[in-house]
């Protein structure tokens, strides 16, 4: 009974990756699954200050190679992201995960930076993915950075996705910082 379940979940995971990858690759897409191309008219997008909405986030078990232990396949991690802030001329955001009921092992973590635009939507900026142990802290966090080309006030947030087990995604609270990119 376990093997078909895991295979089925793996198929869902691949689909979830495809959905998320499509979302991340769009330079102007909204972060909550909106169209990936630029529109002259407003498109549906999360509002600044919106928190994690797991009902619209892709479920994200990934990195399935070889046998997946039931413990790893069925676990739910906690996704965490710090508020995007200015650091050495960049907008910077970190992502990390907490173990929850997952095993102590490395998981992929993706941090996608979003900047709020006057068309009332979040625009994707840089992203970063890394494989880290749970807990956060130096060496166990993934950092996404985007060079600030201007210093006027703009809204920023990050979307942090943890891929182990059932995965988890969180949208950090939007912050207005003196950085435009």
């Amino acid at each position, binding site marked *: 009974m376990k093997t078909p379940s895991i295979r089925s979940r793996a198929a869902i995971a691949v689909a979830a990756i495809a959905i998320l990858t499509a979302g991340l690759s769009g330079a102007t897409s909204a972060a909550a699954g909106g169209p990936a191309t630029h529109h002259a008219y407003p498109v549906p997008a999360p509002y600044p200050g919106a*928190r994690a909405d797991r009902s619209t986030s892709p479920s994200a078990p990934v990195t399935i190679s070889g046998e997946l232990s039931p413990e790893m396949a069925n676990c739910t991690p906690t996704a965490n992201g710090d508020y995007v802030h*200015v650091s050495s001329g960049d907008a910077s955001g970190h992502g*990390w995960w907490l173990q929850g009921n997952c095993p102590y092992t490395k998981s992929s973590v993706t941090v996608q930076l979003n900047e709020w635009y006057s068309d009332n939507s979040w625009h994707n900026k840089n992203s970063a993915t890394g494989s880290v142990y749970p807990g956060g802290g*130096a060496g166990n966090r993934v950092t996404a950075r985007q060079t600030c080309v201007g210093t006027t006030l703009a809204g920023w947030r990050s979307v942090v996705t943890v891929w182990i087990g059932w995965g988890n995604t969180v949208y950090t609270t939007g912050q207005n910082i003196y950085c435009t990119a």
Partner: protein
Amino acid sequence: MNASPVAVTGLGAWCDLDSPEEDSGGRGTSFKVREFALLSDGREVTLLDDRGWTTSAPLGGTADAGMSVTHVVRNVYNVVLPDNAEETGQEHEWQRFAQRLREAGVEVTLDELRALPYRVVLSDRLRSLLGLPS
């Protein structure tokens, strides 16, 4: 008559909930963090106030799914880490702290800052939500 020079007596991070309590039931929870220095004359100087984090975990709940005091305190330390902590091994923004304190009229060396006690202070509201006594 010269007054004694003001000294820094301690450092810390203050943490409070930054999202409506009703949002902590499954839509993620946000926290704001402010680092501060306590001075010998009773003043408090804000050192860094643009940090915070959002977690997918709800407040309370079980050890697996909910958020513990340990979870919160650990994340406070995570979000105040310098961006280059991986390279420098530094746990706090010592240079920035010294600069802020200088602006407040307090001269202090980086070594003196590193030697000070550092504590995490949770707001009364947060302590209550985490089941801690006020």
